[in-house]
């Protein structure tokens, strides 16, 4: 499979949030404002690529020992430690980036989308380069979903034509469902 089709496929067709329903918590939680949505999206791209870069070789080690089933627990361990390490390094060397990513960096340590992309790289049988491209695309897809949704939510804010019983969370969930339905139009593209 070509790298371009992997990238396009994971951004649009198999979008992690809107088609695979992973990482819904930050998708609903942090999409109120556009700038925080972008911050979160960029942090997710960053962590997904790093996590894949670290976990793909580790899976090969596990396979060598014949204990591939330890995948989940080892991946969580490695991702958490990695994010912690990156945060410390960023704080020291690039304080401006650390400040920009802010609270989102530690927040996504336990994000299921990050773990999900690492595991699906293995399941799909991608090689190292393909895995990295897939992770980048997954992150971009997450960013895209966040930005689109925060735009839709800004229109809901203070909208008086919403019935009282739908205001707040209910209309947000309905909107998210419509956005997800919209993305189904991409199915079969790749």
């Amino acid at each position, binding site marked *: 499979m070509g790298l371009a089709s992997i990238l396009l496929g994971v951004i649009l067709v198999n979008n992690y949030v809107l088609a695979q329903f992973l990482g819904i918590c930050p998708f609903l939680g942090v999409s109120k404002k556009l700038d925080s949505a972008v911050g979160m999206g960029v942090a997710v791209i960053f962590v997904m690529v790093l996590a894949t870069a670290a976990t793909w070789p580790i899976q090969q080690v596990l396979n060598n*020992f014949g204990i591939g089933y330890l995948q989940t627990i080892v991946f969580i361990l490695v991702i958490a430690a990695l994010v912690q*390490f990156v945060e*410390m390094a960023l704080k020291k060397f690039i304080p401006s980036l650390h400040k920009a990513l802010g609270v989102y960096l530690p927040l996504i340590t336990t994000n299921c989308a990050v773990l999900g992309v690492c595991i699906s790289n293995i399941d799909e049988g991608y090689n190292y380069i393909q895995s990295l491209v897939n992770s980048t695309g997954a992150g971009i897809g997450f960013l895209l979903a966040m930005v689109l949704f925060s735009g839709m939510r800004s229109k809901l804010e203070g909208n008086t034509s919403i019935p009282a019983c739908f205001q707040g969370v209910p209309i947000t969930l309905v909107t998210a469902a419509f956005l997800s339905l919209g993305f189904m139009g991409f199915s079969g593209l790749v």
Partner: protein
Amino acid sequence: MSSILIPVALVSAIGFVLAVVLTIASKIFFVPVDETVAKLRAELPGANCGACGFAGCDDYANALGADPSVGTGKCPVGGAALAEALAAVLGVEADSSEPQVAVVMCNGNNDAAKTLMEYQGLKTCKAAKQLFGGLSACPYGCMGLGDCAVACPYGAIQICNGVAVVNRELCVGCGICAKQCPNSVIRIAPAKNKVVVQCNSKDKGAVARKNCSNACIGCGKCAKVCKFEAITVENNLAFIDPEKCKNCGLCAKECPTNAILNMRAKRKPAAPAEAPTPAAEAPKAE
């Protein structure tokens, strides 16, 4: 046996390596915390109420340390003493922090205000508000179920005779109660103002009076009698400008429904021959 030993050893090894790496990294990448910020943080009360406008005491200390022009007087919990302590750490002039207190803009107690129903539901104002807009006839007033009293971290609010009452000695003006009230009856106002309108009703005079005998009917007598032009009547409700009010109490005397409370005046039966010390005002604060 080895089928269990290898995984255990491997995961332990990974955990150990990661722990060592993180420990070393935390030493190498150690960013010294600014000493001033640490001192500022030590001075702050640590209630993390957010009344200063920052996300907790840590955030305020960071902001102050980075830029003293943020102002040392933002913390209503610590008040003027804290503002000076913070200023001493920073080596700048303290800005005056005016003490603030919560003011309940309702005196619709059980004797004065009519109730709509025999409410037997969940004993919170928020729940009662969902049911036909509250249990009292006046849709603007205090329902007296005590969401504010529960929320207050300083124990400064009590429900007395069906109305929330703020103890001005305990209140620090953090505003948590004001956020809880579904009718927005509680306002945060400067503590120096001792004359307050105890009504929130925006109904027309006749309707307001029918619902509650202590209601402001928007007659405007107070506005006329005020020598400092501190009172305006808008939406059938008197408002005293805290900047202009001099606590003279003329309006409280003039008010036909006793909707204005003058905390400096001696209470006729309640507080008999006490000297007008600040302590004498406190017991029945609102």
